[in-house]
Every structure is written in C-alpha cells, then in structure tokens.
C-alpha cells in the first residue's frame, strides 16, 4: 500500500508528458485521449451498467465477466452488445474486437494473468479506465468508502465519451435516491452481521468496502466494523458474542441466501441467536453491494426490507 502511494506521483509525472484534449486521473496514472472512443470494451458488471445507464451501448464493441443478470431497464440495450467471454477475455480476443477503450470494474482485470498491464494497452493506443472504488491507492483499506466513487465514475466516463450532460443528470438522480434513503434509514440503532459465504468460518465484511457502505447508508451498525478491509474471515464466536439484531445475507451465485439461512438455523449454537430465532433476515444481491449503478437499488431494497421487519 505504502509503495503504491509513493509510486503514484512518479507515475503521474511520467504520464503528464503527453498532454492532449481530455486528460483524466485513472488509478495511479493519468490517461489522455484525442477523440471519444467508439469501440469500448467493458470488463465486469459495474462498468457495463455505467455505459448502459449513459446510453452508450452503440459505442461498445463488447463486454465480459458479468456477475449477475443486467437489470430489466437496460436489458434491450445490453442485448446489442457482443459478449466476448464469460470471465476476462484473452488479450487476443480484445484486439480482434478492435477495441479502442477498456473500462474495467476491478484492477485485477489488468493483472498479468488476465489482460496484462494497462500501460501495455495504452502503448497500443487503447485507453483504459478502472472503476474508482477498486483503485487501492485512492482507497486505503482502513478508510471507509463513500458514494463519491460512483459519481466520479459517471462523471469521468461522461467526459471521456463527450456526454457530460447525461452524466450530470445520472449522477444527480443517483445521489438523490441515496440521500432519500439516508433521510429515513430503517436500520438506525440496530446491529447487523453480514454473511457472504463459508461455513467453517463466515466470510463477512470489515470497515471499508462496498457492503459496509450499504449497511451504513441504511443505518445499520456492522458487528465487525472494527476490522480493516472490505472482507474478513470472521470467527463464529464473534457473531454469537455480539448477538446481532439483524442478519444481512448476500445473495450470490456461489452461495445463495437460502442456503446460508438454512445453515444458521441448523447449527445448534447459531440457531439460538435472537435474530435467527425471530427470523430477522434481510437479503441483498452481491451485484448491488458494488459501487455501481445498482448500488442505489440495493440500498433502497434493504431499507424497505428493514422497515418491513419492524
């Protein structure tokens, strides 16, 4: 982490040499493009949805690595975009699609075993951008995330593709929805255990990731909020000792909410938790915990479920 922090300014100086029409800060480096991209390729779900929400489906040459179904309002637009791969596509596939811009949700997209370094792509004249929330040098693991990265992604993509007006509208609408939930947070004063997966030890959340921000926005107090990082491997004893008011189950392909609830109800110790006995479970899909277009959906749905519990 510290190394990244020290390297970031060096990199910025290096990249500043080629100034051009649009220059933006990308994770640890800046990017310059002469003309708005016409053949963008998105990697992961959040970038794909940012593009669709901005009505940029005609400027996309492909997409890859969805976690989940695309929400109904963008499904027709999504159907026009070719899917290049189930996970990260091979570099050759990206080149063959004649991409001129790569927009990834996680920095892992540009690791050596996936698409390869972002520098390499920029060297080929192909622009890159990584969703702000997953940029580790911007967001150290001991500082809680805010909704700022969602707005920043919308704004930046709007600038790159020359659709600033649409971007400003979308950002304002998103912000308004989040503020509305904050104004009537149904989880206020309640403690919550967030359960992603695992049974020997539960995979839960620390202080500073997307899911923690979801919980915070609806007013819940996370029982493992004292731990660094987005995700933590908790001990079950902590959960029993904390006896949370609510259990938030993450609905995901790798572990469904129903199976996690069944596991807790079958365990002789966990079955005795107040929240389990009283059936105080709420569910949020994994894709709605990422800082993207579905984040506001997740926050709204969770808030409604919590309000219904009372």
């Amino acid at each position, binding site marked *: 982490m510290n190394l990244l922090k020290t390297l970031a300014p060096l990199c910025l100086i290096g990249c500043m040499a080629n100034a051009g029409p649009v220059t933006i800060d990308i994770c640890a480096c800046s990017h310059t493009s002469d003309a708005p991209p016409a053949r963008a390729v998105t990697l992961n779900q959040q970038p794909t949805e940012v593009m669709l929400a901005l009505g940029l489906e005609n400027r996309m040459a492909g997409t890859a690595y969805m976690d989940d179904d695309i929400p109904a309002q963008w499904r027709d637009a999504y159907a026009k975009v070719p899917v290049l791969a189930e996970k990260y596509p091979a570099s050759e596939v990206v080149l063959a699609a004649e991409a001129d811009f790569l927009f990834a949700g996680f920095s892992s997209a540009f690791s050596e075993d996936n698409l390869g370094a972002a520098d390499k792509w920029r060297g080929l004249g192909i622009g890159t951008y990584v969703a702000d929330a997953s940029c580790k040098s911007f967001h150290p693991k001991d500082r809680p995330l805010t909704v700022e990265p969602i707005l920043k992604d919308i704004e930046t993509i709007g600038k790159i593709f020359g659709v600033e007006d649409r971007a400003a509208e979308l950002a304002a609408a998103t912000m308004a929805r989040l503020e509305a939930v904050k104004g009537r947070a149904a989880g206020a004063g309640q403690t919550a255990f967030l359960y992603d997966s*695992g049974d020997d030890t539960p995979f839960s959340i620390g202080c500073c990731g997307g899911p923690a921000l979801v919980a915070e926005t609806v007013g819940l107090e996370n029982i493992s909020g004292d731990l660094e990082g987005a995700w933590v491997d908790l001990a079950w004893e902590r959960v029993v*000792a904390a006896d949370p008011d609510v259990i938030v189950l993450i609905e995901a392909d790798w572990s469904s909410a129903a199976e996690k609830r069944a596991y807790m109800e079958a365990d002789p110790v966990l079955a005795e938790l107040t929240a389990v006995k009283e059936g105080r479970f709420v569910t949020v899909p994994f894709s709605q915990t990422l800082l993207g277009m579905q984040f506001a959906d997740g926050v709204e749905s969770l808030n409604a479920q919590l309000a219904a519990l009372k």
Partner: protein
Amino acid sequence: MQARFPILLGLSLLALAAVMLAGVLWGTASLTWGQRAAILTGSGEAPRGLSLIVWEWRIPRVLAMALIGAGLSLAGALMQTALRNPMADPYLMGLSSGASAAAVGAIIWLPASVTAVLGVPLMAFLGAGAAFAMTLGLSVRRGEALDPLVVVLSGVAISLMFQSLTAFFLYVGDPHATRSALGWLMGTGAGTEWQEVPMLAIGLLAAAAAAFVKAGDLDATLLGDERAEALGVDTGRLRLLIFFGTVILTGLAVSVAGIVGFIGLIVPHMARLLTGARHQRLLPLSMVLGAAILTAADLLCRILLAPEELPLGVLLALFAAPPFISILRGVRRAA
C-alpha cells in the same frame, strides 16, 4: 534415555492437558473467569450463547485437534520407518493432493444441495483413498517386493497430477467460492462438530493399537529389509499394513480439518531426538507431542488475529521451519 522416557511422556501429557484446557477457556469470544466456571460446572447462571460456544464448538474442536495431531504424528513416524526416509510424511502417497482435488472440486463445482448431502469431508476422504490406490497400483509389480523408492516416486507423480487438477479448479472457480476452498487447503479446526470426534478417536485407537503390537517388528525394519527378514519379519506385509493405517489416519484427519501440514513430518523427528528410535517409546511420545502442538497451534490461530481466524497452515509453516532446520543439521552431523 530409557530412564528419561517416563518423565518425558509425563511432562508431554501434562503439557497436552494444559493446552487442551486453554483451548476450551480461551477463544475469540472473551469470557470472564466467573463465566468460565459457571459454564464448565453447568450451573444455570452462564449466558446461554457463551455456554453453547464452549460446549458445542470449543470442546469438540479441541478434542478433534488433539486426535488429529496425534494421528498425523503417528502416521508420519510410521511412514518414516516404512520408507526409511526422514523426509517421509503422512501425505507422501498423494493423499493430500487427492483429497484436495476432490474437496476443491466439490466446493467449486457441485451445487450446494449436493455437497450438503454428500459432504465435502466424505469427498475428501474418497479423494485421498483414490490417490492412495493409484500410488499403490503404480508401485506394485507382480511377484516383486514393494520398493520404498518406487513408492515415493509414484506418490510424487500422483501428487503432481492431482495438484494440477486442484489448480485448474481454483483457476476457473469464482473468487468467493475459491476462498472457502483455499481455507480448506490450508487446514482449519473451525467448524468441527461433535459427530466428527468419535470416528477420529476410533481410527486413532485402532491404528495405535496395531502399531504397538508391531513395535518390535518396526524396530527390526530399521536394520534393513534383509536383517529384518532374517529376524522373521515379513517386511512387505508390514509396509502394506502401515500404508493402510496411514490412509485411515490421514484420510480422517483431512476430512475433518483439511490439509494440516508439517505435524506429521516434524513431530516424529522431535520425538526421535528426545527418546530415540525405539518404536515402543517413539510412537507414544510422537502422538502426545503432536496432539499438544496442534492443539496449541489451533488456539493461536483463533486468538492471534481475533475476531478473524488464521488457517492452521500459516502458523504451522512458520513454527515448523526452525525446528526442521535444526533437525536437519542434527541428522547431517549424525551421518
């Protein structure tokens, strides 16, 4: 050395009792001494949640760790004797890689409804059994005695095959599913249930009893196959017996706690340095030391990063390296 043995064994048993008690009293959730006393005496004053933590989670966990530590050390000592190789360990015949491939495959590929019925533990046990059968099948030649070197090499070949399969499963798996598979690969005492304790105990008792009966024969094999056979020991049969015992001990351990490394390799050497190579003394001391060390390591895994848990593999690797280096130096000096 003969006179020292009862003292050594007594001290190790005391240490084992102490770490087991500590494993019950300490953990992620902190208890006051009053609560500890109330929980252990079963008086109604203890909070129900904390009492359940101790009786349903900590006690079976500590018992399982002790049994697994003892079982792996016994298996390691026997394998080192059977193959006359100081580097031999319980996983040598492809057991860990077979179990890993089966368990990781089950965690990542099978739907949760199937794994819930069949159970990852059973898959792991079957995987270990399959790898063992393949290693043995590769090593056996009709009408020839089992060559220890061929067994070792077959084990390496089978291990490599299953390791690449595991790597493939991990690579294609979803990162979140992969995480629970990784936890399994590094070994953990978390999630141990009461129902797993009896089968570990039965397996260990049976294997230990058989090993003690054959202690004399085991000593004889240390002299070399020819001399052992001159003393009336059927070395081929003894080796097969050891291999099957190892599969039972290791397969059960792996199915409950995942891959617990280093114990089976290091502890027998420690015991040998303390009490010599005679099996009548080596085996009991290895078992007690192994039980104590694994129980202690598991306790540290629970409290070092509390409320997060460390996998056993991380700590064991850290603590195993220094004694192993000093043992190696000792072995070289002796040679």
